[in-house]
């Protein structure tokens, strides 16, 4: 009987290969199928919604838009509150806010005046260039972020459909 270490090693190699070749598939947990079908149902449900409801608005973007809109319309809002509520005690503070808003309005008006002085073709060109530049920047940053966060997540290999 040959029982040298080399022989034993070969025997072990053979046995290991045989064992690995005959390893059975692991049975998936019973909860997996219901979980997958629940996720699929969720996807289906999402498809039924209107495009507006289907979008998942980011909280930060929604908050930023709300703050912007509030600031934009706050002058009228403060005017309304100022006129409708008895604010005797806070009159000075509100006046300060009102003064600041008036300053902002004046700046806005000045900006509009400057814009109106610029010839229309130049203004259109500037807006177009600005729009193109912003779009290109968004696409560039988006691509970089996508590459950074999803590096190696390639699903398109030779074997994939």
């Amino acid at each position, binding site marked *: 009987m040959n029982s040298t270490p080399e022989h034993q090693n070969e025997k072990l190699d053979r046995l290991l290969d045989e064992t690995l070749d005959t390893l059975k598939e692991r049975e998936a947990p019973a909860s997996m199928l219901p979980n997958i079908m629940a996720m699929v149902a969720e996807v289906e449900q999402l498809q039924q919604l209107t495009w507006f409801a289907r979008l998942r608005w980011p909280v930060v973007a929604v908050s930023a838009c709300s703050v912007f809109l509030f600031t934009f319309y706050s002058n009228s809002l403060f005017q309304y509150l100022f006129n409708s509520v008895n604010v005797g005690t806070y009159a000075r503070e509100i006046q300060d806010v009102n003064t600041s808003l008036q300053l902002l309005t004046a700046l806005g008006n000045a900006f509009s005046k400057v814009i109106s002085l610029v010839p229309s073709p130049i203004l259109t060109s500037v807006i177009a260039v600005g729009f193109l530049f912003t779009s290109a920047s968004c696409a560039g940053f988006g691509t970089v972020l996508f590459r950074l966060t999803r590096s190696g997540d390639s699903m398109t290999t030779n074997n*994939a459909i």
Partner: protein
Amino acid sequence: MTSTHGFEDFVRSYQNMVYSTAVRILGNETDAQDISQEVFLRAYKHFESISKSETAGGWLKTVTRNLCINHLTRYRNRWSLFTDQFTRRGADGDDEEIILPEDESSAMDLDNLDRSEIISTALEALPEKQRVPLVLYHFENMSYDEIGHQLKVSLSKVKTDISRGRRALKTILSRTLEDNHEFNA
């Protein structure tokens, strides 16, 4: 839209294959289940074409493999912490010996346990750097070159890691056989 009944049958047919692939590469059942679900969700999005394709199994395997490797790459630090619980540094600081989890090893009746089951458990307990190339080589039929390319490591490292993994498994196998008095018979 896609028939969900047809998709349910599709999942039923392939779920064991996908889950097995994931659990072998990841060595962790919870993560394997998450990845499997993600694979089938992606399959659902392309179900129209996949259901008619004869290579659906291959597509699922490839996607599973890619997602698992991506998962391991992304959470490498967390994984090294996890695998440290199951491995012990050898004398050279690189060779590692498998230690099966306490509760599992004590629960194992080596005389009665199937050899395949022991190797399967040992395989999942291998350190990530040995387990992944070994699984890709043996179960995914990938060449050393392909493994090196996929894992972004050198060819010699792939060979060394597979060799070390096999050595660790052979040690377990040898012990099992000695316990069963089969080896020298």
